[in-house]
């Protein structure tokens, strides 16, 4: 029997009690949980408005016990801008996939970052379009097979992966911009710390914050969950190195107690 003394793991307060729709082994759920834990620890649940994307996370609003809106494909940063500009004391975050953020929504994300919109973006890089059945994304690795690059991504005709964290970090409006990975417990803990810092950045009005999270898509990659985690570590990290691409001086001074 679970008693308060034996309970070591439970649903964060920021989560609703709904069964997940994500595939087995997909790390979207892990990312959701980290955000929920951070919102709870920072006591932000009742002040937060989330913006869901078009993509596998289109139903993100089913899981978070906060107010939520659902944006057109790629437009979440613009919607978040509209919300934050009229409600500057609320916490506004978008949650976006790589097709959403780095392809159709490239204009919106770059300009939200350039304006230094005081919002937080959680960016899920799973190297493909999950929801529509695993087509090539701007983040698909060279040579990687997807349903729309059946011979493997040919960089001669299909171009090269886009490194969003590095690109956005060049913009002066950005306060915090990092890449983390969700492939093992240590990295998941580091990812959570980054998400915390991103929300702290917003809370203190230090500008645009983004955490890119390398994620799995076992279903569309045609791998077991364990193989998919290994793929992130061995194949994705070399193309998308983990690291802090921009930590503004004000953000660097923030100390976060171990969570």
């Amino acid at each position, binding site marked *: 029997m679970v008693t308060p003394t034996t309970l070591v793991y439970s649903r964060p307060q920021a989560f609703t009690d709904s069964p997940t729709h994500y595939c087995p082994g997909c790390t979207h759920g892990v990312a959701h949980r980290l955000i929920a834990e951070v919102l709870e620890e920072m006591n932000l649940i009742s002040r937060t408005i989330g913006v869901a994307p078009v993509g596998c996370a289109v139903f993100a609003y089913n899981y978070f016990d906060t107010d939520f809106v659902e*944006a057109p494909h790629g437009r979440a940063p613009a919607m978040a801008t*509209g919300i934050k500009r009229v409600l500057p004391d609320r916490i506004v975050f978008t949650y976006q996939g790589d097709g959403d953020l780095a392809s159709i929504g490239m204009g919106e994300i770059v300009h939200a970052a350039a304006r230094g919109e005081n919002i937080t973006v959680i960016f899920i890089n799973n190297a493909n379009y999950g929801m529509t059945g695993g087509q090539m994304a701007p983040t698909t690795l060279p040579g990687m097979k997807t349903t729309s690059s059946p011979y493997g991504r040919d960089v001669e005709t299909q171009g090269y992966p886009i490194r969003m964290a590095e690109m956005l970090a060049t913009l002066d409006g950005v306060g915090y911009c990092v890449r983390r990975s969700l492939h093992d417990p240590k990295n998941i803990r580091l990812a959570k710390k980054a998400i915390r810092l991103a929300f702290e950045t917003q809370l203190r009005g230090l500008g645009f914050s983004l955490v890119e999270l390398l994620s799995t898509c076992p279903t569309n990659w045609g791998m077991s969950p364990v193989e998919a985690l290994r793929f992130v570590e061995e194949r994705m990290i070399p193309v998308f190195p983990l690291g802090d691409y921009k930590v503004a001086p004000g953000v660097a001074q923030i100390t976060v107690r171990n969570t």
Partner: protein
Amino acid sequence: MPKELWKGNEAIAEAAVRAGLQAYFGYPITPQSEILEYLARRMPELGRAFVQAESELGAINMVYGAACTGARVMTSSSSPGISLMMEGISYIAGTEVPAVIVNVMRGGPGLGNIAPSQADYNQAVHGGGHGDYPRIVLAPASVQEAIDLTALAFDLAETYRMICMLILDGSLGQMMEPAEMPEMKPIVQREFDWAVTGAMNRPRRILSSIYIDPVAEEVVNFRLAKRWQEVQVREVRYKEYYLDDAEIVVVGFGTAGRIALSAVRAARAEGISVGLLRPVTVSPYPYSVIEELAKHVQGFLVTEMNMGQMFDDVRLAVQGRAPVEFYGRPGGVVPFPDEILAEIRRLASGQWSPDPDARLSWQKRMASVIQR
């Protein structure tokens, strides 16, 4: 308040401010840019939100976000920019949040030109974004009417949780006229039971246009239609001139209607029994007014600055009970009152068009223009 000289675009901007505009998002495009430029000065001065967006896609989605919070929000653009906004417009309609959108129309299709036009009538009234959704469309014909309708637009949008669009042509946006501004209304933070503002002391709210279960989406479509029926019953607005004894009725909206009024007055001076119906709401459309007129007038003359778009709505209302003639100048050309007067004289002398679709006869009459 005393009358002052106001330029159409700036008048709309100030009228929106006085109606309690909390946020404006836009992108430059002629002949509408003065709205953006005016609000770039005015909104920060009042501590209200203003963003020049990266594109009309950005602008309409910022509007969408702000609208979800229940704030009074507006964007403005001209034809090509409004086309780019159509995705967001459909989402806003599907989410049932209020928003005011101004289209200062220019000649098209494509990049077209920057001259005055009414060619986006069908896009505004019948088409535009994907899916089945109603929207209110207002068509001012003077700077004063643009001011009055801007204020009304916010109230209508909020009452019906619906998009309210103002369509005017570039000449009205650019022209200066004496007009009276309403008093400045204070900003009221409205407590809508649907607005997303952070779930403080209440259950959380979700605003979305997704209904993955088709049966649920069907219910939404019926709900929107029901609300639209209310709008049709309550909100039809139009202006009529000399209709009491009119045998010929000219129908025109916005600037075309205003030019037609000069022609109607001149024809009256010649003893012709002609009147003018100028729809102010082109959506909902005053179908029943036209239907009623069709029972006893000789016929109608529709004048537009396009190829005959509202013409179809007039024909729908007339239902073949009387002939419906057309005279238009598309592409950014503005008709002179004389041109419309000549048409009225033609009809008064009994020369009605032989073609079942009077647009064909009109195109033949325009041969000299087309061959230029």
